[in-house]
């Protein structure tokens, strides 16, 4: 798959999920959408990554050990420059209550697992991260 072209700004996506399988699937899809991937297995690791360098986007699981996705997001939005990344939740929590709490905490979009490439592309398009919603 094509990487970022010369002269094109490198766009990074931080994939936060405690399941290495989910991170691997998300990595494959997002690399096809021309993102450079950083992985983190919980909210605390993700926050460390953001302190080092703010990513363009964050794909964020909810339930994780150490620090969950919701708490991570509250911390992220208070960091300097922490308002910039587009944050898309990606979780099995699929009820109205969780979705509302995510949006209140500053999430830009919300994916209910299971997901596929079409859903990720549609949601990333929705928040302006990629130009076209569907590859074809």
């Amino acid at each position, binding site marked *: 798959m094509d990487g970022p072209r010369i002269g094109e700004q490198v766009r990074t996506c931080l994939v936060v999920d405690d399941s290495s399988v989910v991170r691997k699937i998300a990595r494959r899809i997002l690399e096809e959408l021309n993102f450079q991937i950083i992985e983190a297995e919980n909210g605390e690791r993700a926050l460390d990554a953001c302190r080092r360098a703010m990513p363009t986007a964050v794909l964020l699981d909810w339930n994780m050990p150490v620090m969950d996705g919701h708490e991570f997001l509250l911390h992220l939005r208070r960091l300097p420059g922490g308002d910039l990344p587009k944050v898309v939740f990606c979780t099995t929590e699929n009820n*109205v209550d969780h*979705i509302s709490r995510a949006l209140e905490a500053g999430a830009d979009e*919300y*994916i*209910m697992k299971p*997901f596929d490439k079409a859903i990720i592309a*549609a*949601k990333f398009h929705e928040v302006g991260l990629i130009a076209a*919603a569907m590859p074809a």
Partner: protein
Amino acid sequence: MNASDYEYLRKLFRDHSGLDLSADKQYLIESRLLPLARKCGLSSIDDLLQKMKGGSSRHIAQAVEAMTTNETFFFRDKAPFDHFRDTMIPELLKARAGRKTIRIWCAAGSTGQEPYSLAICLKEMSAQLAGWRTEILATDLSQDVLEKSKAGIYSQFEVQRGLPIQLLLKYFKQNGELWQINAEIRAMVQHRQLNLLHDFSQLGTFDVIFCRNVLIYFDQDTKINVFNRLARSLEGDGFLVLGAAETVVGLTDVFKPCAEKRGLYRPTGARAAVAPMAAAAMPRMAAIGGR
């Protein structure tokens, strides 16, 4: 499926729905008709073909439905809905200030994602539309599809393709893994079964016609015929919206593309002599596929 069966089905789909399958679409037929055969309690496509060839109008109608049902999602392609909100409605607010009505037709309404996306757009603009009467008519060839549209119930997968999360929260009610669009939005859309090959002049004239991703399956003569009749059902200053891969260019001069607005067309005022395909060419068939 042998070659003569394939030819039989190609001709049948062409005559009933205008669906124009090229010679290499065997896999498409198989992937659509096998589930139908099972649903009808038959073990194979051959058994289904036997029923169809024996003249079972029920099996023929169901096969046509199975072939013409398309995948669709909310706010598909996004741009047409931006044009709807930013160009079409503002222009119509000026042009129709006298009678304060706007009529919209989704000519391939399918399972409802497109008409309901338009209804949500109108709802979001309700401040500007106060005192106006808006009407959305969704038609489709398939009765099954219309029933799904009327119910307005979608899977978790379906509501995640194209629908912003805020709009999901605002206009849908969750029921387990399913999401139903609110009664208020459902009530904004009227449903009616219609075959575009048949006469549709009785529907009256519209200000906006969405006819996306349905004519791509039709042969050239059918496309021209439908375009020419759509022009008669559209107000002189109305809008026609086609799918991203579709165009009128080279087919008819009754519509012209809008500069810089892909998929958007305006009537030119040119008139072509037209008769519905089905009424002229196949009066008997019309009784099967029609309403």
